[in-house]
């Protein structure tokens, strides 16, 4: 359970208490520090603009709802960029290997083998295990077990029914159990 039992009165204080945990969630999902930071910053900006007037009891599920949407957007743009790069590479092969300027734009750290190795090394077994889950299962696990949101609040944050939350959570639980239970038993 988290130490967020008492919710601050001001949005700034609320976000100050949330930012590190939000960054952690975004980083686990995106595996990129800059993208995680952008996601958290965008989320905070939206919270300041749209939800400062809402009751502070609603802030947590709303915060995670925005963060989840923002992470989903990052995943989508990442997928689109990968597809674009695939087509550019194919065209380049057809052109006889001419270099296009867009090829020089670096992708996400996880896409390049040398960065992938660094990234994996810096990620803990826990991070890797959660990162390997489908995004919805990641959300369900982190919001319920780590953030301590109720099923209802998690459903709001994930924009789905409580039944879907339970399904995602159950699947995440079963997958993580196979990878994490032996790991923690070995090290304890």
């Amino acid at each position: 359970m988290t130490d967020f039992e008492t919710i601050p009165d001001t949005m700034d204080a609320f976000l100050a208490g949330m930012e590190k945990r939000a960054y952690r969630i975004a980083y686990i999902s995106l595996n990129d520090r800059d993208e995680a930071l952008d996601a958290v910053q965008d989320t905070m900006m939206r919270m300041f603009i749209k939800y400062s007037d809402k009751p502070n009891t609603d802030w947590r599920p709303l915060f995670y709802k925005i963060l989840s949407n923002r992470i989903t957007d990052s995943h989508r743009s990442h997928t689109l960029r990968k597809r674009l790069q695939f087509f550019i590479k194919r065209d380049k092969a057809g052109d006889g290997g001419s270099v296009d300027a867009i090829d020089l734009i670096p992708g996400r750290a996880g896409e390049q083998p040398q960065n992938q190795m660094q990234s994996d090394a810096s990620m803990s077994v826990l991070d890797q295990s959660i990162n390997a889950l489908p995004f919805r299962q990641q959300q369900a696990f982190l919001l319920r077990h780590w953030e301590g949101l109720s099923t209802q609040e998690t459903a709001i944050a994930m924009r789905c029914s409580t039944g879907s939350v339970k399904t995602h959570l159950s699947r995440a639980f079963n997958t993580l159990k196979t990878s994490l239970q032996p790991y923690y038993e070995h090290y304890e």
Partner: protein
Amino acid sequence: MNNSNDPNHTKPDWIKSAVNELDDSVASMDPIDGSRLRTARQMAYREAESQRQEGWAAGLGNWLNWKSGLTLACTIAIVATMTLNLDQPLENVTATPLAKPKVGIEMIPLLTAKEDLEFYESINFLLWLENKQGKS
């Protein structure tokens, strides 16, 4: 039996360990990351404030654009009404508003007509001549 859908239920040890590790990773976060997050929050606040002010100004602008037309029309109507009413003595307005118009009704077509004034004078002369011949 573990109930994975109820975090309040006694968690298995591996979940407790995972949660503790996540908590520790936040507590021992790289100070640079912490600093970047603080800066990001401050930037978010400033950006939100500027957007809010821009939104407020744009809203006011729209409101003024919409209202200003209506206000101008109302002002013109009020001024026109007051000007017309001021031309007439108050007792005339209340007692017999149409009793003594300063400009005779019969003169209005004459004043507003595009035809030359001499044309009407010639008609008047012809009418006078006809009357005189009729009498004689």
